[in-house]
């Protein structure tokens, strides 16, 4: 899926300014191109996953029928799930369903896949987005200050803690948090479970604090490091010198002049991370028993629940491409020079 990733735009020397209408047309063209891309990527991803999943050792019918099943019982389940038909026929069938909005039903529970996704996506989305925001909230000020005073106390301390945090496996950090806040040292937060925001906002916040902290720590460390080094090089550019010689204060220079052009790598990476985390928060979700998308995918793999797996992968692929498309458009907003590219 490398071709769906937005590479940070290369900026060329400033040319004549484009008209506003031109930039809108350009954005539209870009979106259209991306959408065509999206379709191809989705076809490739879903077909590949369908085939690969089919090649996985382990028979879905056996899993659904259970360990106590007789061969006749397994055979009946296989026929009910239509697993006796060739994989290509099943794929075309499934694709036909997707076009009409029907993603099929779970092999195990019979739950419609669309319903399962609708239950899981908001949960993972909430955790992912909040963890990302927290990570940025921590990383950006630290990075800006570290770039402003490289080698200073803030820079060195945040780098050290950051390396430590990034080197520690997520689940270890999660367990440390459980010991500290949920049953070991203190018992102020729930160790497991998830409450919907619409059901009980306070419980919702309480239930996502530990998972979000677990997720954000390594991200924050990487973001700080990335933004800091980009910022350090930006601060050496002529326009900063210019701003400084005009007598602007450090805060204005750092946040108004330096941050924007330094944030391309950061935005690219956080976009990729959101896409990745949507399907990849499984460790955190399992540890804290949170019913998110990552858990759904892993459970589906273990249970050979192909329909759930296909639906979830389809969503992750769509989300990945869409997020990267949004980031692509964000470049246009952030840096006028990009609008003339391509």
């Amino acid at each position, binding site marked *: 899926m490398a071709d769906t990733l937005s590479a940070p735009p290369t900026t060329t020397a400033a040319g004549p300014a484009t008209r506003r209408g031109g930039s809108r047309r350009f954005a539209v063209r870009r979106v259209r191109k991306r959408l065509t891309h999206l379709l191809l990527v989705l076809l490739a991803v879903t077909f590949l996953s369908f085939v690969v999943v089919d090649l996985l050792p382990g028979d879905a019918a056996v899993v659904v029928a259970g360990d106590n099943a007789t061969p006749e019982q397994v055979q009946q389940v296989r026929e009910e799930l239509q697993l006796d038909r060739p994989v290509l026929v099943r794929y075309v069938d499934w694709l036909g369903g997707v076009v009409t909005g029907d993603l099929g039903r779970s092999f195990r529970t019979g739950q419609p896949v669309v319903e399962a996704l609708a239950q899981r996506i908001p949960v993972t989305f909430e955790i992912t987005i909040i963890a990302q925001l927290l990570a940025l909230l921590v990383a950006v000020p630290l990075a800006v200050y570290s770039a402003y005073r490289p080698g200073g106390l803030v820079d060195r301390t945040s780098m050290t803690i950051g390396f430590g945090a990034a080197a520690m496996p997520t689940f270890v950090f999660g367990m440390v948090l459980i010991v500290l806040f949920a049953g070991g040292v203190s018992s102020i937060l729930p160790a*497991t479970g998830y409450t919907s925001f619409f059901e009980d906002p306070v419980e919702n916040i309480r239930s996502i604090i530990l998972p979000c902290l677990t997720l954000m720590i390594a991200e924050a460390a990487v973001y700080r490091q990335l933004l800091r080094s980009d910022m350090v090089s930006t601060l050496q550019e002529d326009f900063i010198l210019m701003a400084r010689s005009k007598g602007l204060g450090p805060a204005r220079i750092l946040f108004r002049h330096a941050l924007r052009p330094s944030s391309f790598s950061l935005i690219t990476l956080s976009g990729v991370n959101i896409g990745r985390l949507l399907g990849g928060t499984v460790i955190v979700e399992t540890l804290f028993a949170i019913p998110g998308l990552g858990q759904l995918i892993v459970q589906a793999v273990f249970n050979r629940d192909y329909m759930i797996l296909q639906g979830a992968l389809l969503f992750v692929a769509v989300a990945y491409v869409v997020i990267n498309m949004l980031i692509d458009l964000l470049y246009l907003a952030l840096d006028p020079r990009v609008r003339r590219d391509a």
Partner: protein
Amino acid sequence: MRLRPRTSRIVAGVALVCCALLVGACGAADRAAVAEGALQERDPYGGDLAAEGAPKPGGTLLLGMDREIVSFDPTVQNSNMAAPAVYDSLMKLTPDGKAEPYLAQSMETTDGGTTWVLTLRPGVTFSDGTPLDANAVIVNTQRHIDTVSSPAHPFAERITSMRAVDPLTVEFVLDGPFGDFPVVFGQPITYGSLGLIVSPAALQQYGDDIGRHPVGAGPFTFTEWVPDSRTVLTKNPSYWQEGMPYLDGLEFRPLPDTETRYASIENGDVDVVFGGYNQELVRASQNPNLRIYYGPGNAGEYLYFNFNKAPFDDRRMREALISSLDLNALAASQYSGRLVSATSLFTESSPYHTAAASDAWPRYDPERARGLIEEYRAGGGDPDFTFKTTQTRVPFGEFLQAQMAAVGIDVQLQFYDLAQYSSSVVQSNDFQLTTWISAFDTPFPGASRLLHSGGNTNYGKYSNPQVDALLDEAATTSDPAVRTNAYQQVEWLVGQDLAMAWFSRSYLSTITKPEVKGIDRYVSRDMFYATTWLDR
């Protein structure tokens, strides 16, 4: 990147703090495990309801399950801890391995086990208001007969005819005498139960989707199921037992990870957890703020020998393997010193167990094992083998490998994920030795499934005509003495044959906060929730 001395000191400091936290977390578990000796049975069938005082009404009980519900449809294979709350059960298992009426009024045979008359309680209705009558039982039983994949199909299949004698009486005629037929109406859903009755009106309305919209006559009615998140049940106001249930509702949450499941009960996130492993039971038994319910049960954790493949088709090699396993070492390294060892099919407190069977079981004796292996080698056999198991049993695999190396056998280890293990190893009989956990409440059908030629969990294809005949006799007879004797002989014979390598009982437990009262359970953990109440 080069770190300056000062920075690296900070790194070391941070690392040290992290390590200290980790060690602290592990240390707690170690301290809890200092006590010696096997875990003791504790209230295996639930609490003493009379001694726990007058039940207080109200409250919602939060329960953590070790696996998610698959379906509420009794014809679908799964172990659903919430199903008995929605349906109740026509019969209920007793500690001596029989069944007594529960939701049903009586179940009697008139002719030594071929014809059975089931009488229902008058006035019992499903939560949708329709009556639980003879017709409802017939409709539900017919579903098990028609659905080949139903876990209860093999039992239902034996019914040749059934009819409603009157609105509250069903007469079943079987293809032959079947003294244990009532057990099938009371056993856990995992083994296939005919005793979980779904409202025929709901079946009509939801069809195949009944598994997600259950309607029964149990103490609680179904409210909501968000898979992998929670299942919510609400008090059934028209429940047949006067004044019950005491609780306003139940909420089941899947907590598949053993560590976090235990953290949840310790932290108070849930009121009850269903434990599956030694480690959580050991920790809970040391915690004064938790109450445990545990009975070792029959069978337990054991190894399957494959009787179709060398080297374990040879009794000498089976004995060699059992004699070379040092259970004390296993207990110390993997069971916190609290292994409940198993040397027989049935647990010690079972009426079907005899001390003779345990006495005849091979003891740890590596010298004898070496001798047997030498003998086997001399006869041209190759004693080396491959041990196949799931990814969660890696430490056990390594233990086995080390123990066998000590007696000169080279063991290859192969680990699989659960789905692959089920289909490519167990169901396809492609192994020499593998491991399993299964505890059963009643000798029927547990022992038959495990040991009868063609039994559906007899994965090693053990076959002894004498054992088959005894198992058939025990299931057929209505005479308790004949039955007991037959099972005692079965236990003795499979011990002599070394049909499986028993090594540990299972650790299926119910762990609760102390304020949870009125627990009513099977050793295999299935619960009845009408009597449960919260003392808060």
